[in-house]
């Protein structure tokens, strides 16, 4: 399994491009048109842009009427929310949790102390393990998530939470690059991903990733 994802994509019998839906949604759809081309190649910028778009989408999902304004700081382009009451909030997880509270949907952070801990854990997983993850580690992350989701509907068990939303945003660019075969190999993850992207109001700015429900590769291992 030393092959990188792009390599295995090249070797797979059916190339991704031959699938009709995928070709309509290049990653370019992620970027807002006002940004200059050279910025797009910078990983920090991409990450920052991603985080800001996510927050905007989250606001819409939560039913905010007016969009907040965000800025970024530091090398990692950590998002900042400047609120008119009190100190600014820094960090994707902190801001997202704050928005959920403001929208009076605290159940999205978990209903019990245990569930809240699990939600927090996956939110931290998102910003520490998934973001900025080197290419060679992507495979082990997919494997971990796939295994974890084997007996679960959502990350926190049977309830939909903020962890699902932010992890969905976080793995979207990885899922979009997977071949059909790879998606099949990570069946539980793909199932969860497909479920979340069809969850009302969540997908927002992101293009749909096609996940086939019937298996093409029988005998494939997962």
């Amino acid at each position, binding site marked *: 399994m030393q092959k990188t994802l792009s390599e295995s994509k090249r070797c797979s019998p059916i190339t991704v491009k031959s699938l009709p839906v995928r070709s309509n949604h290049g990653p370019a759809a992620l970027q807002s048109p006002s940004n200059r081309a050279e910025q797009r190649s910078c990983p920090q910028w991409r990450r920052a842009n991603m985080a800001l778009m996510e927050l905007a989408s989250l606001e819409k999902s939560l039913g905010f009427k007016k969009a907040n304004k965000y800025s970024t700081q530091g*090398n990692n382009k*950590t998002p900042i929310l400047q609120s008119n009451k009190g100190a600014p909030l820094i*960090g994707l997880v902190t801001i997202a949790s704050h928005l959920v509270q403001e929208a009076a949907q605290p159940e999205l952070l978990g209903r019990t*102390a245990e569930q809240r801990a699990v939600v*927090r854990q996956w939110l*931290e*997983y998102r910003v520490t393990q998934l973001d900025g993850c080197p290419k060679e580690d992507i495979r082990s992350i997919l494997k971990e998530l796939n*295994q974890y989701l084997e007996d679960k509907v959502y990350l926190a068990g049977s309830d939909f939470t903020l962890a699902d939303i932010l992890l969905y945003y976080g793995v979207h660019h990885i899922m979009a690059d997977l071949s059909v075969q790879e998606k099949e190999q990570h069946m539980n993850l793909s199932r969860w991903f497909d479920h979340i992207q069809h969850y009302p109001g969540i997908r927002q700015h992101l293009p749909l990733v096609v996940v086939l429900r019937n298996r093409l590769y029988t005998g494939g291992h997962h």
Partner: protein
Amino acid sequence: MSEMKLFVSDGNPHCLKVLAVAELTGVKCDICHASDDERLVPFLSHPVRPVLLLPCGQHLFKANPICLYFLEVSGRDVCDLTSQWLEWEAAELQPALMQALYQCVLLGKMTEAANTLEGHLTYMEQRLSKGATPFLAAEEATVVDIVLWAALYPLLSNSSFLPDKLQCVARWFEQVNALPVCQTVAQRVQQQKSLESLKRFLQKQPLPPARCRNAPLCNRAEEEDAEREMTDEEIQAAGATWSRGLADRPTPAERRHPILPQEGKRNVLITSALPYVNNVPHLGNIIGCVLSADVFARYGRLRGWNALFVCGTDEYGTATENKAREEGLSPQEICDKYHAVHASIYKWFQIDFDHFGRTTTEKQTEIAQDIFWRLYDRGFLIPDTVDQLHCENCQRFLADRFVEGICPNCRYPEARGDQCDKCGRLINAVELKDPQCKVCKRTPVVRSSAHLFLDLPKLESQLEQWLEQSMSTGNWTSNARHITRSWLRDGLKPRCITRDLRWGTPVPHPDFSGKVFYVWFDAPIGYLSITASYTDEWEKWWKNPEKVELYNFMAKDNVPFHSVVFPCSLLGAQDNYTLVSNLIATEYLNYEDTKFSKSRGVGVFGDMAKDTDIPSDVWRFYLLYLRPEGQDSAFSWADMALKNNSELLNNLGNFINRAGMFASKFFEGRVPQMELQQEDKRLLAQVGFELRQYIQLLDRVRIRDALKCILNISRHGNQYIQVNEPWKKIKGGDEDRLRAGTVTGVSVNVACLLSAMLRPYMPAVSATIREQLCAPANCADAMFQGAGSFVCTLPAGHRIGTISPLFQKLEAEQIESLKRRFGGQQIQSAAPAAATVPASPSATIETSANPERAKQLLQEVAEQGDRVRALKAQKAEKTLITAEVAKLLQLKKQLAAAEGKNPEPSPQKGKKK
């Protein structure tokens, strides 16, 4: 709740977090120590700790969520600020922290670790200093403080880790560390041999990812400084300061020798490590001690301190005896010869000593013997017999550098009898594996001899007390602190202060007649004796700890002798000596990514710098620009050319020249009338800010960093001229002409300030600028008072002199030829032929003819020929002669190639193949 199981392992800082928070919140859970390798969480690919197994069967595998869970279970809420700090800890601090722990604990590079964390710790410092509360999130310690304390504990529990400027972080850490919960948990961890287990923990972690290795966070601070926006108040204040002008400041008094401490003045005694006489110093030696000390001494004089700068050659010891035998001279003759060599090199580098003396003087004997008797009478010297290596063939004891062998610690094959160059540890010669007499290459035998030892363990508590005080009040570079602490941590042992040699200060005790003092006992006393040769009233400097501040400059390998061994001698002598209060140690300077090596002829040595036709000031600039402050740096020819052309010529020189030229071309050589507008005042504010930075940095002996302030000012200046275009405005109407005048006048004044700021770094260039601008003698003095103020020193109407360019371009060909010349082989040394192999013939023989190189080689061949003849006449060792002959043949071959002839196939080369 008792069904919860918490799995922890030793040495893992994350486990420290959860244990402390469990303690804080009083949550009960079963604590299990599980082996690190056991996979507790079925879906994770790597084993992690801590893991909390919840009653429902779920695993929590991240420390911060576990901590917050404990908090909630104990009935408290998690607020945004708590969440924010923990997110910062996990996402921003941890990657850098892992990198820093790796550097500090596994590589032993504490300074680098501190640099890695600088940005993050500065962030904490800002939050703490700006925040209204003593702790990070509230009036009292919360889970946030505990988590950050635990994360930083492995590094910050070493009190010398934090740089002085991070006072709030230091205070915060101390307070949190003193909390009962932290104490309890830290003790529990301590008992488990924390360091060893931390090492094991770190070894199991993946290497820190490249993105944190390559993107140093400390750059952030620099960027911010460069783009610092001036506030309106700052701009207005700068304008007011400027208009104060010179007033009627008295001209500073000339230096008058002898300089003695004065009442009511800051009395600063500056020493630089005494260079060993038998070596021609290389660039690394020069930047490490004399040049750094010179910059600081010049700066001190500029600040109006009463400064005395002394240095001299260290002349006693085995190496001198060795050298004398090699050159067929007496040790005294060798010292005389090389002392002159040193003095002339330092003169060329414009090192402005108040006195440059030597250790082979009457005063040295007198003072060293006095200290000896005082130590002896007070019972700090203990006699013992020592097993020493004795060469039967050469009929003498092989102390120190007369013997080489394999290092018992790191197995470096060329360890010397006193210290290993590789691992830096001190060695007892008999511990060397496979020892060899350096002269005859035979194996020596062990014989015993009676010696005296300085009883360091007896002085240890006194030393620690003094160190505590000196380090907390003075400027000690972090490597100096670190090296000293590690010496103390390993425990002090008695150290031998006598040697069976002839060339040294004689031991006055009759039982030890015929022996001399060991050079490390003797050499630092040279500071005192050299001052005594300068003035009879030397004791006013050296026995005056209340009124004198002592600054020692050195490279880091010299630290233990200045911070432990020598202070112990002086403390034990109980004669109210002035001890070091500021110990400034540099890291190493490498040469083009390799080491300076005398034996391999690699690198630029002090006496060759002047043959490069590059001015002394440019050498000084470049060496100071890459002064190994905080980490090793490397000299590179290409970089030197780049810095000369970009920084000196295009930035600094360009600005000063343009400013002067506008004044002389457009305003008949007079400073024009100035009417300051907002834009001009903004420049004044920027320049004033850099000046204050410069003073703050140099006060803390951050010599390299302060140099950047100078270059920042001229960058601002260039921009200012570029934007305002005085050369166009001068052709316009009255208003435009006034504008051109203001810009020119302000620029000329900035140039005048630059001449003052350059004085410690580039004294000749500084003097030239002063001359060209006809600057008043008291101008530097006025601007360097207190925190520093940029005032108008050249008022309207002031007449300036003739302006001419200050710097010259270094051309690529010139640099290429220098690189070739100094790449290797240029020094004929007594090293065996094997050592010259790295600069192999294939590397040095050029394929095409090179007349310049040929001329130089011709000279070298002649010199080498002389050397061989001299050696043969002296009936020197056969191996030595063979080595020199081989080198001669090599040179002849290179000469043939450089002259465009085919090098004759040499028999030696044939054999190798």
